[in-house]
């Protein structure tokens, strides 16, 4: 039945009045909050709230939620009665929305005449958009702020649908009255965490002291007090918000982790810039609805917003020696939990120590990879190998801890205190996995690489071959001896090649051929090898 009753027009108002019987209960704040921060710039917020629910149908609204809340992710549990629907209204009260939502309403137009006299006149807002505001005044129809006189409007009240903060609410069916403790959880953007490692090399260059720091950031406008805070290391599968998912990153399916990290960094900058823009708005240059009819260039100019330096950040370091934050497995990830409750204030950065290991066995060497089958054109080439730090993440090496991805910075003893030698990224590393990180280009250490390829025709006894040779001269201008690792890359195209000759026996490393060469101080060393590959067109 399409129109069951021919209800008189009044009944709409009646319907509204009946709807008005629904009691609205507002929960102003959470009793306790837990914040779990993920790598991809969001967090799971779990709140406990105590509410007094009346017997009848009730609309329960939650104030004080983080403004970046992702509505689709919200879960309200332990309500004890039927939840009819969950609503999220994000039409925020701004100068712009105030004007737009006051269309059809009467306002007071305040006009300051030359000489300072203020004329007040009632007006009705006829239209308001980004292209300007049209008013009906006692004189006729006029545009706001187009006359050149200082003009502003005074509103009687804020339209109901506009809120200072976005609001999550639930419509509940009737149920027993009483006090309940409910749980509200949701994902919210604008939280970040990362890990950083500091490795200090000992004098013999065989061991490091390794420290790991967790850095947390709350980039939202909401301060969270007395929260239980944890971070998740690992890579949950995420979809972009445009595809109904939770992540602001364009695409989570980054094959290369470096690309993912760069994308995260870009997003972080974007969030920071957006905040900067927001704070400009709050600092006295409100972006009002503007736009006039065409006026000559000498006409009214809107105030240009100034660049306001942002110095709101505050870094709090909480980790003290001996007070490490611990980890526990969470499904297939690692969860690090701050052992004490803490405040996560808006725009605050916090650091805590999660790893402190003394005397981890490491290898420090210089590495260079090449393929003699693909010699470079401008040979002979002088190459600087990369300073590399390698270790096994095992108990036997003095480590054996999960290592969340992050930047490792190496410090080495110098004549007057520690020197910074370089930094590199390590990926999520499980216990018993190897780590190898390139930190910097070498100084005073050069490789003179000469490669050559030629063919050998088939004859009665031998098949045709591609032959590649490499002659590598290592020059060490340092006052200390160094170890150099040279890798001959073996890919699908040359994995059938055999070593026909080598000045030193190679080892196998991840499918490649590798040589470790010790070069004395202020001296040189030589590596040469020859590879034979059966020709690809041989049948």
């Amino acid at each position, binding site marked *: 039945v399409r129109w069951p009753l021919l209800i008189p027009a009044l009944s709409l108002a009646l319907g509204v009045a009946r709807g008005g019987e629904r009691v609205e209960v507002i929960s102003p704040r959470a009793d306790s909050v837990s914040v779990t921060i993920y790598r991809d710039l969001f967090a799971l917020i779990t709140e406990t709230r105590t509410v007094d629910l009346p017997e009848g149908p009730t609309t329960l609204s939650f104030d004080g939620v983080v403004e970046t809340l992702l509505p*689709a992710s919200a*879960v309200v549990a332990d309500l004890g009665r039927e939840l009819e629907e969950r609503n999220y209204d994000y039409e925020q009260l701004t100068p712009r929305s105030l004007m737009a939502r006051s269309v059809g309403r009467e306002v007071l137009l305040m006009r300051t005449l030359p000489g300072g006299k203020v004329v007040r006149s009632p007006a009705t807002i006829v239209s308001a958009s980004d292209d300007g505001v049209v008013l009906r005044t006692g004189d006729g129809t*006029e545009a706001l702020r187009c006359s050149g006189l200082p003009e502003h409007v005074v509103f009687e009240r804020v339209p109901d649908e506009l809120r200072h903060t976005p609001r999550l609410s639930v419509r509940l069916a009737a149920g027993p009255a009483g006090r309940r403790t409910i749980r509200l959880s949701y994902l919210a953007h604008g939280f970040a965490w990362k890990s950083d490692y500091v490795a200090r090399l000992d004098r013999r260059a065989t061991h490091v002291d390794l420290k790991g720091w967790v850095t947390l950031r709350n980039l939202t406008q909401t301060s969270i007090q007395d929260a239980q805070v944890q971070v998740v290391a*690992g*890579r949950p599968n995420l979809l972009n918000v445009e595809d109904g998912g939770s992540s602001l990153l364009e695409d989570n399916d980054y094959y290369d982790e470096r690309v993912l990290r760069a994308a995260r960094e870009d997003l972080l900058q974007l969030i920071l810039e957006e905040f900067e823009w927001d704070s400009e708005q709050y600092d006295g240059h409100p972006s009002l609805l503007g736009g006039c*009819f065409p*006026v000559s260039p000498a006409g009214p100019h809107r105030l240009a917003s100034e660049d306001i330096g942002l110095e709101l950040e505050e870094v709090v370091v909480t980790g003290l020696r001996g007070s490490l934050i611990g980890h526990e497995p969470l499904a297939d990830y690692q969860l690090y939990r701050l052992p004490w409750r803490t405040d996560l204030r808006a725009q605050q950065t916090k650091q805590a120590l999660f790893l402190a290991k003394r005397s981890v066995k490491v290898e420090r060497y210089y590495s260079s990879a090449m393929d003699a089958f693909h010699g470079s054109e401008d040979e002979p080439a002088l190459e600087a190998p990369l300073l590399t730090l390698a270790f096994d993440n095992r108990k036997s090496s003095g480590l054996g801890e999960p290592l969340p991805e992050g930047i490792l910075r190496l410090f080495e003893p110098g004549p007057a205190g520690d020197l910074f030698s370089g930094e590199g990224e390590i990926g999520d590393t499980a216990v018993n996995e190897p780590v190898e990180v390139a930190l910097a280009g070498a100084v005073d250490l050069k490789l003179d690489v000469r490669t050559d390829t030629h063919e050998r025709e088939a004859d009665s006894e031998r098949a045709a071959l591609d032959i590649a040779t490499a002659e590598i001269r290592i020059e060490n201008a340092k006052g200390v001896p160094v170890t150099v690792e040279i890798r001959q890359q073996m890919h699908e195209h040359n994995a059938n090649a055999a070593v026909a000759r080598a000045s030193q026996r190679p080892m196998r490393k991840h499918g490649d051929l590798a040589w470790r060469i010790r070069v004395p101080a202020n001296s040189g060393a030589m590596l040469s090898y020859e590879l034979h590959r059966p020709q690809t067109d041989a049948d």
Partner: protein
Amino acid sequence: MNKAWWCLTVLPMAGLAADVPADREISLTIYNKGIALVEHVRPLRMPPGRQRIEFAGVSAQIAPETVSFIAPGVDLIEQNFDYDLLTPAKLMEKAVGGRVRLIRVNPATGAETSEEAEVLSTVQGTVLRIGSRIEVLREDNLPTRVIFDKVPENLRAQPTLSVLVNAAKAVDAPARLTYLSRGLDWNADYVAIFDESRSETSLQGWITLKNESGTTFANARAQLVAGDVNLVNGEEGYWEHQQQRRNANQRRAGAESTQRQQLGDYYVYPIKQLTTIANNQTKQVSFLDTSGVEATKGYEIVFVGFESSDEPRSADVRMRFSNSKATGLGEQLPSGVVRVYVRDVRGQAQFIGEDHIGHTSAGSELALKIGDAFDVSVQPTLVGTRRISKRNVEYAMSYLLRNARPTPVVVTLRQDGLWRENEVLKESLKGRRTDSDSFAWDVNVPAQGETTLTVTLRNGW
């Protein structure tokens, strides 16, 4: 709610206007393709004759070519949708050739002078004729108010549909207006709390409705339709559409039927009570709440091509479950995103990943990707190749599987992307052919241990 939005105005050709009340009834059928069928029922009271009826408060994203207007005893002559937004610039533009009033204020004395002006042009500034003078508005930069006597009818603050109708006699009956609108969309959002130790999951389903149409629909009767409505010139491209139809994580399509109301090839989810769908609102309504659904976890990894890797690659973690009756679910699942949670050591639910599902009929098997395993990885090494003939190459691969977890795991390792002719020559563990161009091995990896799988394959064309 702004009541002014909801009125239907009858403007007889004679120029008389009559206000009639707002929507008596409004129904929305929302498809999950960003499109909705909107039906307004409004009381119509009009005298006989040819006249124009205006519907203010229709969706700002109305597709005017889909409008249908039905009222007993009323013949439709033509319909127009005009939504030329009323702005200061438009107001002046429409005044070209017409007259406005200028009120100038003397900066020294504050005295106001008023004069009539004709608007000549609004291109790159407003040119006015005042008496016999031609002036450019506010070229002197002195305050000048411009007063317009009337607002042109087709400039509006809200989207308005007008129909030209003819009635043989006076009408006092409900009129029904239906049309398709963009800007309304819905999808399903699922919350799964997975309990690995008990091999089960709970699954809650929510319909998430988004209104970005620019219009608030008050006290509407709403129903949501799940299905793959074909839209010509839709916003999504062919590729996205195919993506949505193809479900990488659906392992077997189901063939069970359920109690859910059907409409042609679509499933219908009605919202029980009348609801107000505000502009810019996200509304969620529950449609599924089950627990104790059988679910297991598995590790999978796929390699395409033969390459060595310097770093271990994490295995994918997947949650496998079926929406058949037998596993405790027995509901078809409309397209949406499943967010998966587990309880941490303190019993608090923590988010562990999400995946998209397509429209999934009951009885299907799903393997949702949860994320990358921190503690389970595979490092492939190309040990060597041997060219057998021009078209055939032998590949010797070694895969090092590591497990840092305190329990043993099984990793399904798949070598994919082979050519037309392929066979396994040697394998350290019995595998299986998964399709014409891939093989898979289920590899046991002990707790805090390693397993090496070695395989020699012939690949050719």
